[in-house]
C-alpha cells in the first residue's frame, strides 16, 4: 500500500483521526478560508473542502484546498462531485488537483442542480460516484485514464467516499457503499449520525479497517439548528433528550457548549470503545470553537 498523505498515514498507523470541514463561499476573498484552517489545524489532521454544496455555485473546492494547504499547512480532503463535470473535466481536474499537491479526494454524487441557486443548469452526471472511484483507481494505480490513455507522471491521491448510516432502507445504502469500496475507495466519511446503534450496524456490515471509516458528527449551536438539520438531512434523527437540553439552554452559549461536550465526548468514547471506526468527522455551522473543546475533553 502506497501512502501519499499524512491523513492516510495516521489511519494506517492506527491513530484515531479527526477531520473537519470548510465550505468555500460565493466570493473571491480567501481570508475566511485561511482563518478557519489556522484555527482547525490545532485540532484536526485534515479538513474537508466542499464542492458547491447543496448545488450552490461557490469558489472551486480545488482552488480553496490549494489555498488552505499552501497558506496554513493544513492537509485537505478535497470534495469532487460528478454533478458538474463529465469524465473529461473530472480527469482534467484530478490532474490539476494533483499538480496543486492535493492528496485526498472525496468522491461525491452531488445534490441535484434543481436544489441549488442555479436550478436551471444542466445536471451532468456523466458517470456516477462508483464509476468515478473506479476511474480514479485506474489513474492512480495504472497511470491510465478511463479510456486507457497514458498519463505522464504519477498521481498520488487517496480516494474517499461517503455513506449514510441513517439511510432507510439501510440495505440499499450498505450495498452501495460496499460497491464503492469494491471500486477502490480507501476511506468512508459518513453523514451526520447521532445514534450509536446505527453507527455499529453500518460499521459491522462494512468490516473495516481498511477501508477506514470516519463517523460524521454535528454539534448543534442552537435548538433551531438541530431542528433544521433534522428536517434537511436524509434520515438524521436527533435524540429528544439532547434537543430538549439545547432548548432549555437557549441563549446561554456556555451551557450549550457544555451540553455538546458532554453528548459528543460520550458518543465518541462509545464509538472508540465498541466499533472499528477510525475517526470522527466533525461538521458545524459557524461553531468551530466547539471542535477543540470536544477533542480536548476526550
Amino acid at each position, binding site marked *: 500500500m502506497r501512502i501519499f498523505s499524512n491523513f492516510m498515514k495516521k489511519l494506517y498507523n492506527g491513530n484515531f483521526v479527526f477531520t473537519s470541514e470548510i465550505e468555500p463561499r460565493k466570493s473571491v476573498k480567501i481570508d475566511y478560508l485561511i482563518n478557519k484552517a489556522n484555527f482547525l489545524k490545532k485540532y484536526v489532521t485534515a479538513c474537508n473542502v466542499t464542492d458547491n454544496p447543496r448545488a450552490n455555485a461557490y469558489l472551486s473546492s480545488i482552488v480553496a484546498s490549494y489555498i488552505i494547504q499552501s497558506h496554513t499547512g493544513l492537509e485537505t480532503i478535497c470534495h469532487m462531485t460528478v454533478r458538474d463535470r463529465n469524465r473529461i473535466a473530472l480527469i482534467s481536474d484530478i490532474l490539476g488537483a494533483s499538480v496543486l499537491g492535493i492528496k485526498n479526494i472525496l468522491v461525491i*454524487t452531488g445534490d441535484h442542480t434543481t436544489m441549488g441557486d442555479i436550478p436551471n443548469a444542466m445536471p451532468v452526471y456523466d458517470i*456516477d460516484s462508483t464509476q468515478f472511484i473506479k476511474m480514479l483507481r485506474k489513474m492512480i494505480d495504472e497511470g491510465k485514464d478511463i479510456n486507457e490513455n497514458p498519463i505522464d507522471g504519477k498521481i498520488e491521491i487517496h480516494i474517499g467516499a461517503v455513506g449514510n448510516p441513517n439511510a432507510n432502507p439501510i440495505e440499499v445504502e450498505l450495498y452501495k457503499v460496499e460497491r464503492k469500496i469494491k471500486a477502490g475507495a480507501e476511506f468512508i466519511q459518513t453523514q451526520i449520525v447521532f445514534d450509536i446503534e446505527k453507527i455499529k450496524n453500518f460499521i459491522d456490515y462494512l468490516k473495516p479497517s481498511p477501508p477506514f471509516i470516519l463517523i460524521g458528527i454535528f454539534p448543534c449551536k442552537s435548538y433551531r439548528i438541530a431542528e433544521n438539520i433534522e428536517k434537511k438531512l436524509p434520515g438524521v434523527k436527533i435524540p429528544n433528550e439532547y434537543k430538549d437540553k439545547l432548548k432549555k439552554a437557549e441563549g446561554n452559549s456556555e451551557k450549550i457548549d457544555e451540553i455538546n461536550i458532554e453528548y459528543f465526548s460520550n458518543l465518541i468514547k462509545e464509538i472508540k470503545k465498541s466499533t472499528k471506526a477510525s475517526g470522527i468527522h466533525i461538521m458545524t455551522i459557524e461553531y468551530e470553537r466547539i471542535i477543540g473543546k470536544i477533542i480536548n475533553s476526550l
Partner: protein
Amino acid sequence: MIITKTKSNLLDYVKKYNKIFVIGCGTCATKCQTGGEKEVEELVNKIKNMNKIAIGKVVESPCDLRVLKRDLMNYKNEINDAEVIVALCCGVGAQTISEFSNKEVIPGLDTLFIGMVERIGRFYEKCRACGNCILYETGGICPITNCPKRLLNGPCGGMRDRKCEVNDKDCTWVIIYERLKKYGREEDFKKIREAFDWSNISKSREFMR
C-alpha cells in the same frame, strides 16, 4: 408513445399568414388528444375566425414519409397554395412534414417525452431512447429515465425514507432493489455497473438495417 401538449402561443405564430394548412396525427397525437380529428377541426375553426383561410387533414402517421405522401396525395394543390403548415404532431412528424412539403412549418405541439399512458391526461416518461437497454439488469425500471441523476450504481445520498431528494417519488434505486430482491437477484443489485457510453447519442442517430 410520443407524448405531446398543445403550444400555448400557437396562434401568435399563425397571425402573419393568411393561408394555413393544418396537419394532424392519427397515432400518438390523436391518443394524447392534441392532434386528432377534433383538435385539427378546432384549430381550423379558430384560424378561420381570424379571417384567414384554413384547411385541415389528419395523417395516419406524419412521422412516416411514405404515409405522409399517401395520405396527402389528394391535397397537393392546397398544400402548394398554403403559406405555412401547422403540424399538430410531435417534432419528428413536424420535421418529416417540412422535408416532404418544403414549406414553412409551425410546430403546433411541444414534444414532451416517450411515455406510458395511464389514462388520458396522465402520461409518464419511461424511456430516454439511450440505445442500450439495461432494463433486465435493473428489474424492469429504467434508471436513465427515472433517476434524476441517471445513476447506474444508486441510490445517491439524497434518498430519504425511500423518497428521492428531487421529487416526492419513491427512489428509483430502492424500487430497483425491491424488484431484484423479489426476483431472487439481490446479487445483481450489488454488482458495479460500468460507465455508460454516451458517444452514440451525442449526435443525431441513423439506423439502417
